[in-house]
C-alpha cells in the first residue's frame, strides 16, 4: 500500500510540475491543482496510513489513525480551493485584458502583444 501511495504521489507531482512549466495559464492552473493533490496526500500520509481505523471515537474500534494530519489537510483542501479560484480569476482577467494567456513576459510575447 505504501508503495502504491508513494508512487501515486510521485506521478501526481511529476505531472503537476510538468504542467506548471508550460507557457499558458490554463495548463499551469491545472498543474497546480495536480500538485495540490500530491501535497495533500503527502501531508496526510506523513501521519502514516492505516485502513478501517477512522478517527471517530467508539467503544468497538480497534485503534485510531492519526487525526492531526487529517485536520490539517481538510483545511488545506478548502484553502486550496480559495487559492485556485483567485488564480483562475487572475488568469481570466489577464487573458481578457491582454488578449493573450502566455505567462512569460519575455520580449517575444511583449512584441506580439503590442
Amino acid at each position, binding site marked *: *500500500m*505504501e*508503495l*502504491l*501511495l508513494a*508512487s501515486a*504521489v*510521485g*506521478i*501526481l507531482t*511529476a505531472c503537476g*510540475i*510538468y*504542467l506548471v*512549466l*508550460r507557457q499558458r495559464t*490554463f*495548463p*499551469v492552473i*491545472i498543474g497546480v*491543482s495536480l500538485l495540490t493533490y500530491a501535497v495533500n*496526500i*503527502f501531508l*496526510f*500520509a*506523513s*501521519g*502514516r*496510513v*492505516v*485502513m*478501517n481505523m*477512522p*478517527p*471517530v*471515537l*467508539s467503544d468497538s474500534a480497534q485503534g*485510531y*489513525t*492519526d*487525526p*492531526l494530519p*487529517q*485536520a490539517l*489537510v*481538510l*483545511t488545506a483542501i*478548502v484553502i486550496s480551493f*480559495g487559492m485556485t*479560484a*483567485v488564480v*483562475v*480569476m487572475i*488568469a*481570466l*482577467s489577464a*487573458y*481578457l485584458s491582454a488578449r493573450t494567456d502566455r505567462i*512569460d513576459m*519575455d520580449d517575444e510575447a511583449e512584441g506580439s502583444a503590442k
Partner: protein
Amino acid sequence: MSLFLIAALPFLGAMLPAILIRAGRNASASATGSVTLLALIGLLVHVPDVLAGRPVSARIDWLPSLGLNANFYLDGLGLLFASLILGIGLLIIIYARFYLSRQDPMGQFYAYLLLFQGAMVGIVLSDNILLLLVFWELTSLSSFLLIGYWRHLPEGRQGARMALAVTAGGGLAMIGGMLILGNIAGSYDLSVILTQKAAIQDSPLYLTALILILLGCFTKSAQFPFHFWLPHAMAAPTPVSAYLHSATMVKAGLFLMARMWPVLAGTDAWFYIVASTGLVTMVLGAVIALFKDDLKALLAFSTVSHLGLITMLLGIGTPLAAVVAVFHIINHATFKAALFMTAGIIDHSVHTRDIRSLGGLRRLMPVTFVLATLAALSMAGVPPLNGFLSKEMMLEEVAHTHWITSPWLLMAVVTFGALFSAAYSFRYIAHVFLGPVRRDYPIKPHDPNFGMWVSPAILVVLVVAIGLFPMAIAGDLVAVAAGAVTGQALPPYELKLWHGVSPALFMSIIALGGGVILLALYAPVNRLWLAARRPEAKAIYDAGIAAIERFSRWLTDLLHDGALSRYGAIFTVSILALAVWAWTTGVVGPQTRPALEPGPIAYVGWVALVASALSVAVFHHNRLLMLVLIGVSGLMVAMTFNYLSAPDLALTQISVEVVTIILMLLALNFMPQESPRESSFGRRARDITISVGSGLGMGGLIYAIMTRGFAQPSISEYHLANAKTGGGGTNVVNVILVDFRGFDTFGEIIVLGIAAIVIYAITESILGSSVRARLLNRVPNRPLAGDAHPMIMVVITRVMMPLALIVAAYIFFRGHNDPGGGFIAGLIAAIAIIMQYMASGFGWAAERQRLPYHAIIGSGVLIAALTGVGAWFNQMPFLTSAFGYVHLSGLEPFELATAALFDLGVFLAVVGAVLLALESLSRYAWQPNTVSEYPMDINPAREVGETRGKEA
C-alpha cells in the same frame, strides 16, 4: 492618570480631528487641543511623585516570551521630555489653527500631528527597549506624513522621503544595537538594563552595540554626517518645523543618549565618538547657518548646531555636563520653537522668508519684533535670558575638558562655534527687523492676529523668566531629570546668571563680541563663502541614492525578467538540489513499519489515478479534456482518503472537486479551448527531466516516511484522549478543527473570505473596464444549445434543492460526532445553490438571492469570533469551548456545544465564499434581456406566444 492612557490618548484622539473637520476648523483644532491638554494634565498629576524621587510605572506583560512588555515608566527625564512634547504640542496646535490656510486639509494635519505626538510620548515613557523601538519607528513614519504634508510641493515630498530614508535607516541600525544590548543585559526592560553598567561595558559586543545605537541617535538628531535631512525637512509647514525641530523628533536621539547614559557613557569610545561628533556638528551647523538666506534654513542649521552642542555635552560624560545638557534641552526647546513660529509669522505676513528681501520690519511688526528679538538674543547667549545660562555653564564644562590631551583645543573650537552662533542670531534680528523700511515687500507687512502670536509669546515669557529666576522655575525639573540621566547623586551646582569671573565669561565675551564684528563684516565674508567650493550634502545623497537605484534595477532585471516558467524551473531545480544534498549527507534509519497489504480495489484506484494524471499531462493541449480527466484524479484522491480511514477528507475532497470543476468550466468558457503546441523538443525534454526528478523525490521521501515510525512521540494521542472529555465530540478531526485548533480554523475562514472578496474585486475592476463591451459582443466559442435552461433540469434541480439543503444540515449536525461538519456542510449547501444558477440561469437565481454573499461571509466570521469572545466572559482564553447535555422529555438527551456555534460560522463563511467566487465569475457571462419573466423559460401549460426568453 495611568501612563498607558497618557501614551494612548494621542493615538485614540487622532481620529477626532479627522472626523470633526466636517464640523469646521475650530472644532477640529479644539478637539486636538483638548486631547493634548488632557494628556498633559494626566502627566502633570504625577509631577509631585516624580519630583519627590518616586518614579511612576505601569506594566503589562505583552509578549513575555519575546521579552516584549508594554511597560511604561515616568522618571525625571521622561517627565521633562513628555511635558515638552505635550506642552509645546499644545502651543503648536493653537498656532497651526491660524497658520494653515483654507486650502490645507486641517483635519489630516491634526491627525498626523497627534499620531506623531503619541509616538514621541511613547518613546519617552517606554520602559522596554523593544516597545521603544516600535514608537521610534512610528515617529519616523508619522514625521514622514507631517513633512510631506504639502504633497503638491516637490520639495515637500523629497524632504519627507529623505527624512524617512535617513531616520528609518538609522532606526534599523538601532534595532540591531538594542537587541545586542538586551542580550547582554538579559532583559529588554530599561529599568533592568540601566543597572547592568559593568556587564555591558565589559562585553566584547559593547562597541558594536554602542555604534549601532548611536547611528540611530545621530540620524534622528541630525548629527554630522547625517545632518543634511533636517534642513530639507523645512519644506514642511512651519508649525511642523517648529514642533519637530525644537521639542520633539530631533530631540528623540538626544533623549535616547541621555536615557542610555548610565550604561553607555563613561568610556573613551563614548567620549570620542559622541563628543567629537557633537563638536563637529555644532561648529559646522553654526557656520552654515550664518550664510543661509532663508529664515527657516537659518533656523534649521542653527538647530543642527544646538543639537551638536547638547550631544557634545552628553559625550563629555561628567554628571555636571549632563545637568547642562538637560538644562539646554529645555532652553533650546523654548527659544527655538518661538523662533520658528516668528519665522512662520513673517512668512505669513510678508509672503517671503528670504532675508535679502526683508529688513526694517520693527516698525511694521512691533509684536513680532519683540518676540523674535528676545528669542534670538537667548539663542545668541545674551544675558539675562535662559540661553545665556546654559551656554555659560556649557563653556565652563568645556573649559575643564581635555580633548586628545590638549586642554585648550576644545575650548577654542567651541568658542569659534559660539561666535558664529551669536553672529547668525544677531543676523536674524538685524537683517530682518532693523535697517530702513523697504518699499518692495511682496505684501504690506503687519502683525498677525492674537491667535498666531500668543504661542511664541508664552514661550518668550518662559525664556525671560527662566533667565531671571532659573532655580525657581526650572531648578527642580533640571535636578530630577539630570538625576535620572546620570543615575547617581549630582555634584553641587547652581543655575544662576553670575558665576563670577571665570574662563567661561571670557569665552562668552569673545563669542558675543566676535559675533557682532562678524555680522558687521557680513557682506565681504559672505562673498568669500559663496566663492568657496563646498561639498553639497544633498548632491552626495542624491548620487548615492541614484547609484543604489541603478544597482537594484540591474539586479532586478537580471533576476526578474518576466519569464514565469523559467522562475518555476529554477525554483524546482534549486529545491531538488537541496533535497539531494540533504538526502546524501543525512542519515536514514531502518524501516520499522510493516507494509500495509492493499486490497484489489486499491490497485484499481491506483491505475485510475495514475492514468488520469498522466493523461492530463499528455493531452493538456485539449483543455476541456484536461478538465474531465482532472475530475477523475480528484475523485480518486477522495477515494484514497476514504480507503485510508479519512472519511472527513473524502467528503471534503469530493465537494471541493465539484465546485472547482464548475469554476474552471466557467472560466474556460471565456478562454481558448486549445493550448498551442509551442514548446521546442529541448524544452519539453528539460521540463520532463525536472518533473520526473521532482516526482521521484516526493515519492521517495513519502515512502521513506511511511515505512518508518515517528522519530518523536506524536501529539496526536493527546487529541484522541481528550476529544470526548475536553471537546465533547467523538469525531476527533472535527473537534480538532473547531476546538483544539479553533484559532487556526478561524484564520482559515478569514483567508477564504478574503480570497472570495479579492475575486469579487477583480471582477468589479475588470467589468468596469473596456473588457465589458468586448464580453457583451462576444461570439461564443461553440454554438449555444437551443434551450439554455432545459425544463427537465430546471424541475429536477428545484426539487433537489430542499433535499440537498437537508443533507447539508444533516452533515452539519452530525459533524461533531461523525464525519461531517461545517466545512463539508457549507460546500454541499453551496453546491445546492450553484445547481440553481446552472439550471435556471444567472438572472433567475440572482433575482431570488436576497442576502448579499459578502454579508454571509462577514456574518460567518463574526459568529465564529463572537463564539470565541464568549469564552472571555467565563474567564477563559479566546475560543475555549464549552458543552453540556440537555435532557428534554420525549427526546434522547442531546448535546449543545459552543463548538457547534463556531462551526456555524465556518459553514456560513464557506457558503458565502464559494458562492461569491462563482457568482463573480458568472457575471462575466451576463447578457441583457435574458431573464424570463416566468418561473420557467419554457412551460407547455402556457399559451403559445406568451413564452419569451432565450429559446432563440
